[in-house]
């Protein structure tokens, strides 16, 4: 078969929209969870857990977005997030949540500015600088824990005393409207109501603040002079410079914001997602955030979608084992569909590439039914890997990404 025998059907293009696909996937999974009695797939608690797990990834993703739009790769996000967790917890347990916010964000901003100093002023390789910052943050927090947390009651060398939480709020009336629908037991509708309840009730104030940062980031980056200049510097620093926009200045600003967002992600982890600082708490979320930017094609809305997907898989560890099994079926069906489509195009390798995992996943569910918790623990990481590997899309990173810029033309 050649391309000419398979004309593009315009009326099907809505199927290609990511939002349509998410809605379709939801409908199928909802039906599956009803069939296999996995009630907590789209339960209210499950949805709010997804939000709690998505928010720090989203913050890291927005941090990466700001940095990369200005042309600087920020591998140091993980370290900035670690600094945010430590300083957030340290200030939080002593002086409350406002102090946690200030200290965590300030720690992130400081590391972001160090990254700027190293990469923009000194011209150090951006990846190497980021990696070194991760080493610095891990070392610094471990040392600080040994002096600040190990000596106070409730703390240890690896954990802080309990940190207070942010207030919880609900949208008035949501409970009243959606609860009957959730409990009615109608296949897809009830799950949709449960999602509504999870989204609209018992949300942390900080979660709402984080959600507000998405449109805010979009507005600043695409609708203000500052944002235009940051993006110009990320696309073509030399052209920007020749028009009087100083790349250094805007990269410093962008990296400061980037670090601050990652630091806020750290604060979120110690206050909302848990209630204390634990060494290794970030668990690669800074890196997953970097992945959401690639997956999200350097656009804040898609970054949000990506972090919700990763947050959803990250929250799986809080679910029942059978629920994860149901997701496996969903994934297996998705792979099977792709395999069949590849088969129709007589793409033998593609068919096998997707067909074999599809059969394996469906067989596993048939025979074993549950997914071991050890495997669930790396679900977000594996999802990241699979999405980056299989989702074919037209990516367009900022043209100046990763390129150091010096005035005299040397690098």
């Amino acid at each position, binding site marked *: 078969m050649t391309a000419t025998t398979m004309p593009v059907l315009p009326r099907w293009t809505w199927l290609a929209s990511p939002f349509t696909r998410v809605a379709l996937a939801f409908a199928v999974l909802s039906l599956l969870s009803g069939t296999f009695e996995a009630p907590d797939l789209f339960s209210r608690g499950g949805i709010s857990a997804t939000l709690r797990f998505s928010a720090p990834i989203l913050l890291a993703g927005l941090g990466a977005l700001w940095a990369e739009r200005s042309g600087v790769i920020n591998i140091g996000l993980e370290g900035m997030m670690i600094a945010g967790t430590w300083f957030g917890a340290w200030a939080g347990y002593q002086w409350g949540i406002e102090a946690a916010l200030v200290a965590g964000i300030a720690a992130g901003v400081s590391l972001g500015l160090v990254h700027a100093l190293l990469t923009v002023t*000194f011209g150090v390789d951006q990846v190497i600088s980021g990696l*070194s910052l991760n080493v*610095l943050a891990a070392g610094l927090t471990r040392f600080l824990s040994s002096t600040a947390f190990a000596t106070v009651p409730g703390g240890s060398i690896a954990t802080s005393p309990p940190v207070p939480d942010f207030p919880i709020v609900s949208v008035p009336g949501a409970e009243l409207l959606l609860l009957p629908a959730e409990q009615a037991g109608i296949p897809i509708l009830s799950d949709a109501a449960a999602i509504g309840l999870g989204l609209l009730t018992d949300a942390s104030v900080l979660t709402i603040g984080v959600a507000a940062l998405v449109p805010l980031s979009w507005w600043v980056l695409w609708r203000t002079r500052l944002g235009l200049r940051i993006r110009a510097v990320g696309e073509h620093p030399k052209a920007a410079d020749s028009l009087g926009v100083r790349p250094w200045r805007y990269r410093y600003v962008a990296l400061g914001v980037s670090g601050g967002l990652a630091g806020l992600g750290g604060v979120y982890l110690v206050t909302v997602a848990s209630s204390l600082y634990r060494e290794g708490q970030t668990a*690669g979320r800074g890196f997953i955030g*970097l992945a959401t930017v690639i997956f999200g094609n350097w656009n804040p809305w898609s970054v949000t979608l990506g972090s919700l997907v990763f947050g959803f898989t990250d929250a799986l560890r809080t679910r029942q084992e059978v629920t994860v099994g149901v997701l496996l079926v969903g994934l297996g069906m998705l792979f099977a569909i792709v395999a069949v489509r590849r088969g129709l195009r007589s793409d033998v390798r593609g068919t096998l590439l997707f067909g074999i995992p599809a059969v394996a996943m469906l067989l596993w569910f048939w025979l074993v039914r549950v997914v071991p918790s050890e495997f669930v623990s790396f679900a977000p990481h594996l999802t990241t890997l699979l999405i980056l590997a299989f989702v074919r899309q037209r990516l367009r990173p900022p043209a100046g990404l990763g390129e150091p810029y010096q005035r005299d033309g040397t690098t």
Partner: protein
Amino acid sequence: MRTRVRGAGLLLVAPTAALALALAVACGVLAVTGANPIATLREALTYGLQPATLVAIVNKAIPYYLAGIAAAIGFHLRLFNIGIDGQYRLAAFAAAVIGAAVALPAPLHLALIAVVAVIVGSGWAAIAGFLFVRRGVNVVISTIMLNAVATGIIAYLLSPLRLAQQAAGSNNVTTATIPESGWIPGISTSAGDLNGLLIPALVVGIGYWLVLNRTTLGFEVRALGLNGRAAAVAGMRGPRLALLTMAASGAIAGLVGLPQLLGASHRFGLDFPAGLGFTGLSVAILGRNHPAGIAIGAFLWAFLERSAQVLDLAGISREVVTILQAVIVLSVVVAFELVRRLRERQERRYVAAAIEGAPA
């Protein structure tokens, strides 16, 4: 000729300045925690230079060195293999399981264990290499994710229900112990035994240097790393080399767990050292991808960690060393960059002068 000598001098200036800065930071931190910096450092140095301590330091440095070489291999093509950690742990686990399951004459047994480790390490790294070459997936991200997957796989298999058993008298879970034919004998010195993997590690370092500087393959890797477009024009196949480089990096990473497995614990347990891969990255940055530099870096890292034990006695948290290490990495990176710029400026001035002096 004179510029070349000055260049070499400059090359030494960078690490010296970085070390001086790190020492200054160390003194500052020690002073803040209320200790006498000079006395503490002298004490740490005296302890670190005792023969018995030196043997322990060298043993500690061997895995750091191997991890450093593994990282350096990737660095040449800007393939930042953050996944050394997962690669060596998975490799050591597989090697421990297979090594304990067979009984062979000593040399064969050791060879089998090493081969298994190398194959598993390079296979795991090749996944990231393949994803990079075929799907353009960033290696930093894919290897980090593969670390998490490796951790999960090991956690699943390292269970009394599967490939491991409860260790007697402790709550450690380990694989079966490898029979003695699969142990590597130590090199005895008057101050204690050096780990037998010291010599293979040095051979790996020399081999790395030879392949990189004395073979076509190494030339291609260096050329591609310096200027991808020029190398492609010259007919070098980037994707093939990238995949090969990742696999080679993973193969050496597979060896990182062997000093512990073959020379010390002889089994893989929950207490198997983790995080050596990240040390390797620091050490490779410090050593500028040169085997001798990496050796110095690995020794320095081990020295710092070992001599820090004195700090505990003085009532100072030994974690101060982790700050010190980070400062060293950061300042070395900055110092080398500044020196590079300085040299470039010198060269430009030299060329400008030469052109001016020449008849038009």
